[in-house]
């Protein structure tokens, strides 16, 4: 039953949602409206997803709490992590329950604008350096296909930068053509293939043939 009930839940919930796209009215012999039922289920899904987001935070506390209690190397960083987490969580929850309190609102906005947002942006900005290094050291035109890839990349970069347009007026035209025609064809074909694969996988999950989401025993 540990596997059968979850599979049944997946099937019933999935079929209800799927059928609601095709049958708008009331189910004959019942007072149930599939669309309303699907709306309720997706609303419940939003609430369950909110709990799921908290899972990651709980896991972080477990891991870093263990690092602190066992005084592992760098345990003080784990302490700062948990302290920061508690600070943000507390202020966020206080903001929710005191929406008129400008002090708490401003504090939360400042914490977001000057801690979370810029540090997150800086983390992703590091990728620019790695792509520069990769462009120099790794991207080699070793074959015809690699040469086509690099040529397309260079033409797009020249076409999209204002300086490329200054160098030769046709660079933006070529870049636009590459984006609108071959790229679009490639993205569409890959999307069609992925859509067929996604449909097949979703059907397998719905019918209980795919059980990876259940995990091991």
């Amino acid at each position, binding site marked *: 039953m540990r596997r059968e009930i979850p599979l049944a839940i997946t099937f019933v919930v999935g079929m209800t949602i799927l059928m609601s796209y095709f049958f708008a009215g009331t189910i004959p012999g019942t007072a149930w409206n599939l669309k309303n039922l699907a709306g309720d289920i997706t609303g419940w899904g939003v609430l369950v997803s909110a709990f799921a987001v908290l899972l990651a935070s709980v896991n972080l506390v477990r891991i870093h709490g263990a690092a602190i209690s066992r005084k592992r190397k760098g345990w003080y960083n784990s302490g700062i992590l948990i302290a920061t987490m508690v600070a*943000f969580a507390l202020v966020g929850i206080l903001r929710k329950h005191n929406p008129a309190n400008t002090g708490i609102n401003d504090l939360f906005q400042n914490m977001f604008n000057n801690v979370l947002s810029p540090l997150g*942006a800086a983390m992703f900005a590091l990728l620019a350096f790695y792509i520069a290094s990769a*462009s120099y050291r790794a991207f080699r035109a070793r074959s015809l296909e690699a040469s086509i890839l690099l040529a397309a990349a260079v033409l797009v970069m020249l076409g*999209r930068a204002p300086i490329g347009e200054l160098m030769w007026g046709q660079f933006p035209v070529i870049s636009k053509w*590459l984006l609108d025609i071959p790229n679009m064809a490639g993205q569409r074909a890959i999307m069609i293939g992925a859509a067929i694969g996604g449909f097949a996988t979703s059907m397998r999950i719905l019918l209980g043939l795919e059980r990876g989401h259940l*995990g091991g025993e």
Partner: protein
Amino acid sequence: MNISGNLWIWFMGLGMLAIFSFIYKENPLYRLFEHIYVGAGAGYAIGINWGNIYDRGWVPLVEKGQYSVIIPIFLGLMLFTRFFKSVAWVSRWSMSFLVGIGTGTAIYGVVNSQLVAQVRATMINVIAKDTAGAILLPKTLNNIFLVVSVLSILLYFFFSVEQKGPVKTGATLGRWVMMVTFGVSFGNVVMGRISLLLGSLEDILGKWLGIL
């Protein structure tokens, strides 16, 4: 130079510099701000998601008497049983519920918007004409190239037929078109990463140091 006197801005500037110091060498300052960032992200997620739990769970149940909401609340709480080995199997019910919603929405959405709509958009009249009925050669050539490219890439991924003769020619064309696709993607990735770096540099040089 007009350096900001705001402590928050100073924290922002020093934090961003600490993150960027990683490109020189991994160091304790980078690790400190990395942990601050992870903690901030997790805490922010709790703070914001609490709103969803309160508005969609607590208020309907306690203030509006909508007892059906007990079901998703229980399903949500059941997710946390995965941390206890003896009852971890209980969390499968919640996962199955979410997966069921996901597959139900995905099947319709993917087939309607990504399969049917995209195939329909490929079934174009390849001969492009202007309002006077004259053939527009560049647009016509583009349309032919578009349809042939989509078909050749689909042929490349068609493994049920041995790829030789005309099938191999078509698949080879498909591979070349895909290389252009990946090249365009790479060009956009480079541009995107530089944009991200520029945003951070603007914060450091403008907001903090007041040089811009």
